Protein backbone atom coordinates (compact mmCIF):
# COMPACT_ATOMS: atom_id res chain seq x y z
CA UNK A 1 0.00 0.00 0.00
CA UNK A 2 1.80 3.12 -1.19
CA UNK A 3 1.81 6.42 0.67
CA UNK A 4 -1.23 8.58 0.06
CA UNK A 5 -0.68 11.40 -2.38
CA UNK A 6 -3.51 13.42 -0.89
CA UNK A 7 -4.55 13.29 2.74
CA UNK A 8 -7.47 15.43 3.89
CA UNK A 9 -7.76 15.56 7.65
CA UNK A 10 -10.79 16.90 9.51
CA UNK A 11 -11.41 19.61 6.99
CA UNK A 12 -13.88 22.22 8.17
CA UNK A 13 -14.89 25.59 6.83
CA UNK A 14 -17.33 28.08 8.29
CA UNK A 15 -18.85 31.00 6.43
CA UNK A 16 -20.24 33.29 9.05
CA UNK A 17 -22.77 31.07 10.75
CA UNK A 18 -22.86 28.38 8.09
CA UNK A 19 -20.64 25.33 8.30
CA UNK A 20 -20.19 24.47 4.64
CA UNK A 21 -17.77 21.60 5.12
CA UNK A 22 -17.80 19.65 8.34
CA UNK A 23 -14.96 17.49 9.52
CA UNK A 24 -14.26 15.83 6.19
CA UNK A 25 -11.42 13.35 5.99
CA UNK A 26 -10.24 11.09 3.21
CA UNK A 27 -7.09 10.08 1.43
CA UNK A 28 -6.03 8.96 -2.01
CA UNK A 29 -3.13 6.88 -3.18
CA UNK A 30 -1.36 7.83 -6.41
CA UNK A 31 -3.27 6.95 -9.56
CA UNK A 32 -6.65 6.44 -7.94
CA UNK A 33 -9.83 7.72 -9.54
CA UNK A 34 -12.61 8.56 -7.07
CA UNK A 35 -15.98 10.19 -7.38
CA UNK A 36 -17.46 12.89 -5.17
CA UNK A 37 -21.22 13.20 -5.30
CA UNK A 38 -24.00 14.71 -3.27
CA UNK A 39 -27.08 16.88 -3.59
CA UNK A 40 -26.74 20.51 -4.60
CA UNK A 41 -25.22 22.64 -1.90
CA UNK A 42 -23.56 19.65 -0.25
CA UNK A 43 -20.20 21.34 -0.31
CA UNK A 44 -18.46 19.38 -3.05
CA UNK A 45 -17.07 22.35 -4.96
CA UNK A 46 -16.20 23.90 -1.62
CA UNK A 47 -13.94 20.94 -0.92
CA UNK A 48 -12.15 21.57 -4.21
CA UNK A 49 -11.89 25.26 -3.37
CA UNK A 50 -10.35 24.37 -0.03
CA UNK A 51 -7.81 22.08 -1.63
CA UNK A 52 -6.73 24.80 -4.05
CA UNK A 53 -6.92 27.44 -1.30
CA UNK A 54 -9.36 29.72 -3.03
CA UNK A 55 -11.16 29.60 0.28
CA UNK A 56 -9.36 29.53 3.57
CA UNK A 57 -9.72 26.51 5.78
CA UNK A 58 -11.26 27.09 9.20
CA UNK A 59 -9.70 23.99 10.70
CA UNK A 60 -8.15 20.74 9.55
CA UNK A 61 -5.23 19.91 7.33
CA UNK A 62 -4.54 19.15 3.70
CA UNK A 63 -1.42 17.10 3.07
CA UNK A 64 -0.23 16.70 -0.49
CA UNK A 65 2.77 14.52 -1.32
CA UNK A 66 3.64 14.40 2.33
CA UNK A 67 3.59 18.14 3.03
CA UNK A 68 0.82 20.36 4.32
CA UNK A 69 -0.35 22.83 1.68
CA UNK A 70 -2.49 24.94 3.98
CA UNK A 71 -2.07 28.63 3.31
CA UNK A 72 -0.10 28.19 0.09
CA UNK A 73 -1.14 30.53 -2.68
CA UNK A 74 -3.28 28.93 -5.40
CA UNK A 75 -0.58 29.31 -8.02
CA UNK A 76 1.94 27.60 -5.76
CA UNK A 77 -0.51 24.76 -5.21
CA UNK A 78 -0.84 24.38 -8.95
CA UNK A 79 2.94 24.32 -9.31
CA UNK A 80 3.07 21.61 -6.65
CA UNK A 81 0.88 19.44 -8.83
CA UNK A 82 -2.83 20.07 -8.31
CA UNK A 83 -4.91 21.29 -11.22
CA UNK A 84 -8.65 21.57 -11.79
CA UNK A 85 -11.60 22.42 -13.93
CA UNK A 86 -14.43 24.65 -12.78
CA UNK A 87 -18.13 24.17 -12.18
CA UNK A 88 -18.88 27.36 -14.12
CA UNK A 89 -16.37 27.24 -16.92
CA UNK A 90 -13.52 29.69 -16.52
CA UNK A 91 -11.69 29.70 -19.78
CA UNK A 92 -9.86 32.76 -21.05
CA UNK A 93 -12.66 33.92 -23.31
CA UNK A 94 -10.78 35.98 -25.89
CA UNK A 95 -7.93 33.53 -26.22
CA UNK A 96 -8.03 30.76 -28.76
CA UNK A 97 -8.40 27.16 -27.69
CA UNK A 98 -4.70 26.69 -28.42
CA UNK A 99 -3.69 29.68 -26.32
CA UNK A 100 -5.81 28.51 -23.41
CA UNK A 101 -4.03 25.17 -23.36
CA UNK A 102 -0.60 26.70 -23.89
CA UNK A 103 -1.09 28.91 -20.85
CA UNK A 104 -1.03 25.85 -18.61
CA UNK A 105 2.34 24.90 -20.07
CA UNK A 106 3.99 28.27 -19.51
CA UNK A 107 2.30 29.34 -16.28
CA UNK A 108 5.84 29.92 -15.18
CA UNK A 109 7.64 31.16 -18.28
CA UNK A 110 10.18 28.64 -19.48
CA UNK A 111 12.75 31.27 -20.34
CA UNK A 112 13.91 34.47 -18.67
CA UNK A 113 12.56 37.96 -19.25
CA UNK A 114 15.76 38.98 -21.00
CA UNK A 115 15.34 36.08 -23.38
CA UNK A 116 11.79 37.26 -24.01
CA UNK A 117 13.05 40.60 -25.28
CA UNK A 118 15.76 39.10 -27.41
CA UNK A 119 14.44 35.75 -28.47
CA UNK A 120 17.55 33.57 -28.24
CA UNK A 121 17.74 30.28 -30.13
CA UNK A 122 17.21 28.52 -26.83
CA UNK A 123 14.04 30.50 -26.18
CA UNK A 124 12.81 29.74 -29.67
CA UNK A 125 13.43 26.04 -29.11
CA UNK A 126 11.50 26.27 -25.85
CA UNK A 127 8.60 27.92 -27.64
CA UNK A 128 8.56 25.29 -30.37
CA UNK A 129 8.58 22.59 -27.74
CA UNK A 130 5.71 24.26 -25.90
CA UNK A 131 3.76 24.59 -29.12
CA UNK A 132 4.21 20.89 -29.83
CA UNK A 133 3.04 19.84 -26.37
CA UNK A 134 0.02 22.14 -26.55
CA UNK A 135 -1.04 20.59 -29.85
CA UNK A 136 -0.58 17.12 -28.38
CA UNK A 137 -2.95 17.99 -25.57
CA UNK A 138 -5.49 19.44 -27.97
CA UNK A 139 -5.36 16.24 -29.98
CA UNK A 140 -5.83 14.16 -26.88
CA UNK A 141 -9.16 15.87 -26.21
CA UNK A 142 -10.09 15.96 -29.88
CA UNK A 143 -9.99 19.73 -30.16
CA UNK A 144 -7.17 20.04 -32.67
CA UNK A 145 -9.59 21.22 -35.36
CA UNK A 146 -10.76 24.06 -33.17
CA UNK A 147 -7.32 25.21 -32.11
CA UNK A 148 -7.62 28.70 -33.56
CA UNK A 149 -11.16 29.43 -32.49
CA UNK A 150 -11.86 31.85 -29.66
CA UNK A 151 -12.70 29.95 -26.52
CA UNK A 152 -15.89 31.92 -25.97
CA UNK A 153 -17.16 30.91 -29.41
CA UNK A 154 -16.90 27.19 -28.77
CA UNK A 155 -19.98 25.14 -27.93
CA UNK A 156 -20.42 24.29 -24.28
CA UNK A 157 -19.33 20.67 -24.51
CA UNK A 158 -16.12 21.59 -26.30
CA UNK A 159 -15.41 24.26 -23.72
CA UNK A 160 -15.53 21.64 -21.00
CA UNK A 161 -13.05 19.50 -22.90
CA UNK A 162 -10.83 22.51 -23.43
CA UNK A 163 -10.81 23.23 -19.72
CA UNK A 164 -9.63 19.69 -19.15
CA UNK A 165 -6.82 20.09 -21.68
CA UNK A 166 -5.75 23.32 -20.03
CA UNK A 167 -5.79 21.71 -16.62
CA UNK A 168 -3.65 18.88 -17.95
CA UNK A 169 -1.23 21.37 -19.50
CA UNK A 170 -0.33 22.49 -15.98
CA UNK A 171 1.33 19.09 -15.50
CA UNK A 172 -0.64 17.97 -12.45
CA UNK A 173 -0.25 14.88 -10.36
CA UNK A 174 -3.74 15.37 -8.95
CA UNK A 175 -6.51 16.44 -11.30
CA UNK A 176 -9.81 17.72 -9.95
CA UNK A 177 -12.75 17.66 -12.34
CA UNK A 178 -15.78 19.69 -11.33
CA UNK A 179 -18.91 18.43 -13.10
CA UNK A 180 -17.28 17.70 -16.46
CA UNK A 181 -20.53 16.27 -17.81
CA UNK A 182 -22.73 19.20 -16.89
CA UNK A 183 -25.21 20.03 -19.61
CA UNK A 184 -24.33 17.02 -21.76
CA UNK A 185 -26.75 14.61 -23.40
CA UNK A 186 -26.49 10.81 -23.52
CA UNK A 187 -24.13 10.62 -26.46
CA UNK A 188 -21.88 13.38 -25.21
CA UNK A 189 -21.71 11.67 -21.81
CA UNK A 190 -20.64 8.46 -23.50
CA UNK A 191 -17.86 10.27 -25.37
CA UNK A 192 -16.82 12.01 -22.18
CA UNK A 193 -16.62 8.75 -20.28
CA UNK A 194 -14.31 7.35 -22.96
CA UNK A 195 -12.20 10.48 -22.93
CA UNK A 196 -11.79 10.62 -19.16
CA UNK A 197 -10.99 6.94 -19.01
CA UNK A 198 -8.34 7.37 -21.70
CA UNK A 199 -6.85 10.38 -19.92
CA UNK A 200 -6.67 8.48 -16.66
CA UNK A 201 -5.11 5.43 -18.29
CA UNK A 202 -2.53 7.31 -20.33
CA UNK A 203 -1.55 10.11 -17.98
CA UNK A 204 -1.85 8.16 -14.73
CA UNK A 205 -3.17 11.17 -12.82
CA UNK A 206 -4.77 10.82 -9.43
CA UNK A 207 -8.26 12.14 -10.03
CA UNK A 208 -11.27 13.28 -8.07
CA UNK A 209 -14.43 13.89 -10.06
CA UNK A 210 -17.50 15.78 -8.88
CA UNK A 211 -20.46 14.80 -10.97
CA UNK A 212 -24.25 14.72 -11.00
CA UNK A 213 -24.73 12.44 -13.98
CA UNK A 214 -25.03 9.12 -12.20
CA UNK A 215 -24.19 7.06 -15.27
CA UNK A 216 -20.89 8.89 -15.69
CA UNK A 217 -19.96 8.48 -12.03
CA UNK A 218 -20.92 4.85 -11.74
CA UNK A 219 -19.18 3.95 -14.98
CA UNK A 220 -15.91 5.71 -14.31
CA UNK A 221 -15.74 4.75 -10.65
CA UNK A 222 -16.44 1.06 -11.10
CA UNK A 223 -13.65 -0.76 -9.35
CA UNK A 224 -12.99 2.29 -7.23
CA UNK A 225 -14.95 4.23 -4.69
CA UNK A 226 -17.36 7.12 -4.45
CA UNK A 227 -17.65 9.61 -1.61
CA UNK A 228 -21.07 11.02 -0.85
CA UNK A 229 -21.29 14.44 0.73
CA UNK A 230 -24.44 15.92 2.22
CA UNK A 231 -24.78 19.24 4.00
CA UNK A 232 -21.03 19.41 4.39
CA UNK A 233 -20.42 16.01 5.95
CA UNK A 234 -19.58 12.65 4.54
CA UNK A 235 -22.68 10.53 4.31
CA UNK A 236 -21.19 7.39 2.87
CA UNK A 237 -18.29 5.98 0.94
CA UNK A 238 -18.20 2.83 -1.10
CA UNK A 239 -18.22 1.17 -4.47
CA UNK A 240 -20.78 2.28 -7.05
CA UNK A 241 -22.99 -0.71 -6.24
CA UNK A 242 -22.87 -0.04 -2.52
CA UNK A 243 -23.65 3.65 -2.98
CA UNK A 244 -26.52 3.01 -5.33
CA UNK A 245 -28.25 0.82 -2.79
CA UNK A 246 -27.45 2.84 0.31
CA UNK A 247 -30.74 4.05 1.83
CA UNK A 248 -29.19 7.17 3.38
CA UNK A 249 -27.83 8.23 0.03
CA UNK A 250 -31.15 7.66 -1.65
CA UNK A 251 -32.90 9.67 1.01
CA UNK A 252 -30.48 12.53 0.73
CA UNK A 253 -31.04 12.79 -2.99
CA UNK A 254 -34.75 12.23 -3.09
CA UNK A 255 -35.82 13.67 0.21
CA UNK A 256 -38.01 12.02 2.81
CA UNK A 257 -40.89 9.98 1.47
CA UNK A 258 -44.30 11.10 2.70
CA UNK A 259 -46.14 9.13 5.35
CA UNK A 260 -47.75 5.99 4.08
CA UNK A 261 -46.22 6.18 0.68
Amino acid at each position, binding site marked *: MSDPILNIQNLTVDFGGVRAVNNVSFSLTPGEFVGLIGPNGAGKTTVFNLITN*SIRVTSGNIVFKGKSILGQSP*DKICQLGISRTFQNIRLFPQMTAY*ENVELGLHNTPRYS*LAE*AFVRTPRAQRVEADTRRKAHELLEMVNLEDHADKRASSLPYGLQRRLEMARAMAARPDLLLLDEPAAGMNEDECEELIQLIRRIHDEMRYTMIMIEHHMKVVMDLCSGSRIYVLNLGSFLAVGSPEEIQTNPDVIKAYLGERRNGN
Partner: protein
Amino acid sequence: MGYINTILILGGINVIAALGVSILTGYTGLFTIGHAGFMALGGYVSAILIKEYNVHFVLALIVGGAFAGVASLIIGYPSFRSRLRGDYFAIATLGFSEAIRLILNNAKQIGNLNIGGSFGYSIPSGLINVPVILIAVLVAAYFAHMFVTSQHGKNCIAIAQDEVAAEMMGVNLLRTKLTALFISAFYAGVAGGLMGLFFAYQSPSFYSITQSSNLLAAVVFGGIQSLIGPIITAFILIAAPQVLLVFESWRLIAYGFLFVLVMVFRPQGLLGYVEMNLNFIKVGWKKMTATKAPHGKAVH
Protein backbone atom coordinates in the same frame (compact mmCIF):
# COMPACT_ATOMS: atom_id res chain seq x y z
CA MET B 1 8.88 72.46 -41.37
CA GLY B 2 9.55 73.04 -37.72
CA TYR B 3 5.85 72.61 -37.11
CA ILE B 4 5.71 69.17 -38.67
CA ASN B 5 8.89 68.33 -36.79
CA THR B 6 7.18 69.18 -33.53
CA ILE B 7 4.22 66.97 -34.31
CA LEU B 8 6.42 64.06 -35.30
CA ILE B 9 8.59 64.32 -32.22
CA LEU B 10 5.82 64.90 -29.71
CA GLY B 11 3.79 62.22 -31.39
CA GLY B 12 6.66 59.80 -31.15
CA ILE B 13 7.18 60.58 -27.48
CA ASN B 14 3.50 60.00 -26.81
CA VAL B 15 3.66 56.72 -28.67
CA ILE B 16 6.47 55.47 -26.46
CA ALA B 17 4.60 56.31 -23.27
CA ALA B 18 1.40 54.87 -24.72
CA LEU B 19 3.17 51.59 -25.51
CA GLY B 20 3.99 51.31 -21.84
CA VAL B 21 0.42 51.97 -20.76
CA SER B 22 -0.78 49.53 -23.39
CA ILE B 23 1.32 46.77 -21.86
CA LEU B 24 -0.07 47.52 -18.41
CA THR B 25 -3.68 48.34 -19.19
CA GLY B 26 -4.33 46.85 -22.60
CA TYR B 27 -2.51 43.59 -22.04
CA THR B 28 -2.57 43.08 -18.28
CA GLY B 29 -5.89 44.78 -17.54
CA LEU B 30 -4.59 47.14 -14.86
CA PHE B 31 -6.16 50.59 -14.85
CA THR B 32 -3.81 53.52 -14.47
CA ILE B 33 -4.49 57.24 -14.49
CA GLY B 34 -1.15 58.03 -12.89
CA HIS B 35 1.53 57.29 -15.45
CA ALA B 36 2.33 60.96 -15.81
CA GLY B 37 3.98 60.52 -12.43
CA PHE B 38 6.41 57.99 -13.86
CA MET B 39 7.06 60.28 -16.79
CA ALA B 40 7.83 63.08 -14.36
CA LEU B 41 10.20 60.95 -12.31
CA GLY B 42 12.07 59.64 -15.33
CA GLY B 43 12.03 63.06 -16.92
CA TYR B 44 13.52 64.94 -14.01
CA VAL B 45 16.08 62.26 -13.15
CA SER B 46 17.42 62.13 -16.68
CA ALA B 47 17.37 65.94 -16.92
CA ILE B 48 19.38 66.30 -13.73
CA LEU B 49 21.89 63.68 -14.90
CA ILE B 50 22.37 65.47 -18.20
CA LYS B 51 22.62 68.98 -16.84
CA GLU B 52 24.50 68.49 -13.58
CA TYR B 53 26.55 65.42 -14.28
CA ASN B 54 27.11 65.57 -18.02
CA VAL B 55 25.82 62.08 -18.55
CA HIS B 56 25.33 61.04 -22.15
CA PHE B 57 21.68 61.52 -22.99
CA VAL B 58 20.97 57.91 -23.94
CA LEU B 59 22.37 56.64 -20.67
CA ALA B 60 20.50 59.36 -18.79
CA LEU B 61 17.23 58.33 -20.40
CA ILE B 62 17.77 54.71 -19.44
CA VAL B 63 18.64 55.59 -15.86
CA GLY B 64 15.60 57.85 -15.67
CA GLY B 65 13.45 55.02 -16.93
CA ALA B 66 14.99 52.66 -14.40
CA PHE B 67 14.22 55.09 -11.58
CA ALA B 68 10.62 55.24 -12.69
CA GLY B 69 10.58 51.46 -12.88
CA VAL B 70 11.85 51.00 -9.38
CA ALA B 71 9.38 53.55 -8.04
CA SER B 72 6.60 51.63 -9.74
CA LEU B 73 7.66 48.46 -7.95
CA ILE B 74 7.52 50.23 -4.61
CA ILE B 75 3.95 51.23 -5.37
CA GLY B 76 2.99 48.00 -7.05
CA TYR B 77 4.24 45.50 -4.53
CA PRO B 78 1.94 46.45 -1.63
CA SER B 79 -0.89 47.22 -4.03
CA PHE B 80 -0.92 43.86 -5.72
CA ARG B 81 -0.30 41.74 -2.70
CA SER B 82 -3.65 41.77 -1.01
CA ARG B 83 -6.06 38.96 -1.68
CA LEU B 84 -8.86 41.44 -1.42
CA ARG B 85 -8.08 42.53 -4.99
CA GLY B 86 -9.06 46.10 -4.42
CA ASP B 87 -8.36 49.01 -6.70
CA TYR B 88 -5.37 49.83 -4.55
CA PHE B 89 -3.10 50.11 -7.51
CA ALA B 90 -5.19 52.61 -9.45
CA ILE B 91 -5.60 54.81 -6.41
CA ALA B 92 -1.97 54.54 -5.35
CA THR B 93 -0.64 55.51 -8.78
CA LEU B 94 -2.99 58.46 -8.94
CA GLY B 95 -1.94 59.53 -5.46
CA PHE B 96 1.70 59.13 -6.40
CA SER B 97 1.31 61.07 -9.61
CA GLU B 98 -0.40 64.00 -7.94
CA ALA B 99 2.04 64.04 -5.05
CA ILE B 100 5.01 64.17 -7.41
CA ARG B 101 3.52 66.97 -9.44
CA LEU B 102 2.74 69.06 -6.37
CA ILE B 103 6.21 68.60 -4.96
CA LEU B 104 7.87 69.47 -8.24
CA ASN B 105 5.63 72.52 -8.44
CA ASN B 106 6.39 73.82 -5.00
CA ALA B 107 9.86 72.69 -4.24
CA LYS B 108 12.47 74.90 -5.74
CA GLN B 109 15.31 72.92 -4.31
CA ILE B 110 16.19 69.35 -3.68
CA GLY B 111 19.15 69.41 -1.36
CA ASN B 112 21.29 72.12 -2.90
CA LEU B 113 20.05 71.41 -6.39
CA ASN B 114 17.81 74.02 -7.89
CA ILE B 115 15.09 72.40 -9.94
CA GLY B 116 13.06 75.47 -10.53
CA GLY B 117 9.70 74.52 -9.10
CA SER B 118 6.86 75.65 -11.30
CA PHE B 119 9.19 77.71 -13.43
CA GLY B 120 10.76 74.61 -14.79
CA TYR B 121 14.24 73.28 -15.04
CA SER B 122 16.17 74.04 -18.16
CA ILE B 123 18.63 71.70 -19.81
CA PRO B 124 20.84 71.78 -22.86
CA SER B 125 18.91 71.50 -26.10
CA GLY B 126 19.57 70.23 -29.61
CA LEU B 127 19.89 66.58 -28.73
CA ILE B 128 16.58 65.44 -30.11
CA ASN B 129 15.48 65.39 -33.70
CA VAL B 130 13.14 63.30 -35.78
CA PRO B 131 15.58 60.49 -36.64
CA VAL B 132 16.44 60.01 -32.97
CA ILE B 133 12.79 59.81 -32.02
CA LEU B 134 12.07 57.48 -34.90
CA ILE B 135 14.77 55.11 -33.72
CA ALA B 136 13.47 55.34 -30.18
CA VAL B 137 9.93 54.54 -31.29
CA LEU B 138 11.04 51.60 -33.40
CA VAL B 139 13.13 50.17 -30.60
CA ALA B 140 10.32 50.67 -28.11
CA ALA B 141 7.76 49.07 -30.41
CA TYR B 142 10.06 46.16 -31.17
CA PHE B 143 10.69 45.31 -27.55
CA ALA B 144 7.06 45.79 -26.64
CA HIS B 145 6.10 43.38 -29.39
CA MET B 146 8.70 40.88 -28.19
CA PHE B 147 7.31 41.08 -24.68
CA VAL B 148 3.64 40.68 -25.46
CA THR B 149 4.24 37.73 -27.78
CA SER B 150 6.47 35.99 -25.25
CA GLN B 151 5.32 33.55 -22.60
CA HIS B 152 5.67 36.38 -20.07
CA GLY B 153 3.35 38.55 -22.12
CA LYS B 154 0.82 35.79 -22.59
CA ASN B 155 0.60 35.34 -18.84
CA CYS B 156 -0.25 39.04 -18.62
CA ILE B 157 -3.06 38.54 -21.11
CA ALA B 158 -4.41 35.63 -19.07
CA ILE B 159 -4.48 37.86 -16.01
CA ALA B 160 -6.40 40.51 -17.93
CA GLN B 161 -9.04 38.02 -19.03
CA ASP B 162 -9.51 36.06 -15.83
CA GLU B 163 -7.11 36.71 -13.03
CA VAL B 164 -8.56 34.09 -10.73
CA ALA B 165 -8.40 31.34 -13.34
CA ALA B 166 -4.86 32.38 -14.24
CA GLU B 167 -3.77 32.04 -10.64
CA MET B 168 -5.42 28.67 -10.29
CA MET B 169 -3.62 27.53 -13.42
CA GLY B 170 -0.32 28.36 -11.79
CA VAL B 171 0.44 31.93 -12.89
CA ASN B 172 2.12 34.00 -10.18
CA LEU B 173 0.00 37.14 -10.21
CA LEU B 174 2.31 39.36 -8.21
CA ARG B 175 5.42 38.65 -10.25
CA THR B 176 3.64 38.94 -13.58
CA LYS B 177 1.89 42.19 -12.71
CA LEU B 178 5.08 43.73 -11.34
CA THR B 179 6.90 42.81 -14.53
CA ALA B 180 4.30 44.52 -16.70
CA LEU B 181 4.27 47.49 -14.36
CA PHE B 182 8.03 47.91 -14.38
CA ILE B 183 8.17 47.86 -18.16
CA SER B 184 5.33 50.36 -18.46
CA ALA B 185 6.90 52.72 -15.94
CA PHE B 186 10.27 52.44 -17.68
CA TYR B 187 8.71 53.39 -20.99
CA ALA B 188 6.94 56.32 -19.34
CA GLY B 189 10.16 57.45 -17.69
CA VAL B 190 12.04 57.41 -20.98
CA ALA B 191 9.23 59.32 -22.64
CA GLY B 192 9.40 61.95 -19.91
CA GLY B 193 13.12 62.27 -20.44
CA LEU B 194 12.67 62.69 -24.19
CA MET B 195 10.06 65.34 -23.53
CA GLY B 196 12.51 67.40 -21.53
CA LEU B 197 15.20 66.99 -24.14
CA PHE B 198 12.88 68.22 -26.85
CA PHE B 199 11.60 71.28 -25.00
CA ALA B 200 15.04 71.89 -23.51
CA TYR B 201 13.37 72.08 -20.17
CA GLN B 202 11.36 70.06 -17.68
CA SER B 203 8.26 71.39 -16.02
CA PRO B 204 5.71 69.87 -13.66
CA SER B 205 2.97 71.17 -15.95
CA PHE B 206 3.88 68.46 -18.46
CA TYR B 207 2.83 65.80 -16.01
CA SER B 208 -0.74 66.47 -15.01
CA ILE B 209 -3.76 64.22 -15.04
CA THR B 210 -4.38 65.45 -18.58
CA GLN B 211 -1.20 63.72 -19.66
CA SER B 212 -2.26 60.53 -17.93
CA SER B 213 -5.66 60.80 -19.56
CA ASN B 214 -3.97 61.17 -22.94
CA LEU B 215 -2.17 57.89 -22.44
CA LEU B 216 -5.25 56.09 -21.22
CA ALA B 217 -7.18 57.47 -24.18
CA ALA B 218 -4.59 56.10 -26.60
CA VAL B 219 -5.15 52.63 -25.22
CA VAL B 220 -8.93 52.83 -24.85
CA PHE B 221 -9.46 54.19 -28.34
CA GLY B 222 -6.59 52.38 -29.97
CA GLY B 223 -7.60 49.02 -28.63
CA ILE B 224 -7.23 46.53 -25.82
CA GLN B 225 -4.56 43.91 -26.33
CA SER B 226 -3.06 45.60 -29.33
CA LEU B 227 0.10 47.58 -29.92
CA ILE B 228 -0.60 48.91 -33.37
CA GLY B 229 -3.91 50.41 -32.27
CA PRO B 230 -2.49 52.56 -29.46
CA ILE B 231 0.51 53.49 -31.61
CA ILE B 232 -1.74 54.94 -34.27
CA THR B 233 -4.09 56.56 -31.77
CA ALA B 234 -1.32 58.01 -29.62
CA PHE B 235 0.06 59.72 -32.66
CA ILE B 236 -3.30 61.00 -33.85
CA LEU B 237 -4.18 62.33 -30.42
CA ILE B 238 -1.11 64.54 -30.56
CA ALA B 239 -1.24 65.42 -34.23
CA ALA B 240 -4.95 66.06 -34.63
CA PRO B 241 -5.51 68.78 -32.02
CA GLN B 242 -2.62 70.73 -33.51
CA VAL B 243 -4.59 70.81 -36.70
CA LEU B 244 -7.91 71.46 -35.04
CA LEU B 245 -6.70 73.97 -32.47
CA VAL B 246 -10.18 75.30 -32.12
CA PHE B 247 -11.25 72.12 -30.39
CA GLU B 248 -8.39 71.95 -27.92
CA SER B 249 -10.50 73.15 -25.02
CA TRP B 250 -13.05 70.47 -25.74
CA ARG B 251 -10.47 67.73 -25.84
CA LEU B 252 -10.94 66.34 -22.35
CA ILE B 253 -14.70 66.60 -22.63
CA ALA B 254 -14.53 64.62 -25.85
CA TYR B 255 -12.29 62.03 -24.19
CA GLY B 256 -14.73 61.60 -21.35
CA PHE B 257 -17.65 61.19 -23.65
CA LEU B 258 -15.81 58.78 -25.88
CA PHE B 259 -14.56 56.69 -22.96
CA VAL B 260 -18.15 55.95 -22.00
CA LEU B 261 -19.31 55.41 -25.57
CA VAL B 262 -16.42 53.07 -26.36
CA MET B 263 -16.97 51.04 -23.20
CA VAL B 264 -20.68 50.72 -23.84
CA PHE B 265 -20.62 50.07 -27.55
CA ARG B 266 -17.17 48.85 -28.55
CA PRO B 267 -14.97 48.08 -25.57
CA GLN B 268 -12.23 46.59 -27.65
CA GLY B 269 -11.56 49.97 -29.21
CA LEU B 270 -10.44 50.55 -32.76
CA LEU B 271 -8.01 47.71 -33.27
CA GLY B 272 -8.44 45.63 -30.17
CA TYR B 273 -6.86 42.18 -30.30
CA VAL B 274 -5.28 43.06 -33.67
CA GLU B 275 -1.59 42.46 -33.50
CA MET B 276 1.28 43.87 -35.46
CA ASN B 277 2.21 41.25 -37.89
CA LEU B 278 5.83 41.54 -38.80
CA ASN B 279 5.13 39.40 -41.80
CA PHE B 280 4.04 42.33 -43.84
CA ILE B 281 7.40 43.95 -43.20
CA LYS B 282 9.21 40.80 -44.31
CA VAL B 283 7.14 40.60 -47.48
CA GLY B 284 7.72 44.27 -48.23
CA TRP B 285 11.45 43.89 -47.66
CA LYS B 286 11.59 40.93 -50.03
CA LYS B 287 9.80 42.89 -52.69
CA MET B 288 12.14 45.82 -52.25
CA THR B 289 15.32 43.79 -52.37
CA ALA B 290 14.01 41.87 -55.36
CA THR B 291 13.50 44.97 -57.47
CA LYS B 292 16.85 46.40 -56.48
CA ALA B 293 18.83 43.59 -58.07
CA PRO B 294 21.36 45.26 -60.43
CA HIS B 295 21.04 42.88 -63.38
CA GLY B 296 17.27 43.03 -63.39
CA LYS B 297 16.76 39.49 -62.21
CA ALA B 298 14.62 38.99 -59.11
CA VAL B 299 16.72 38.13 -56.10
CA HIS B 300 15.19 36.59 -53.03
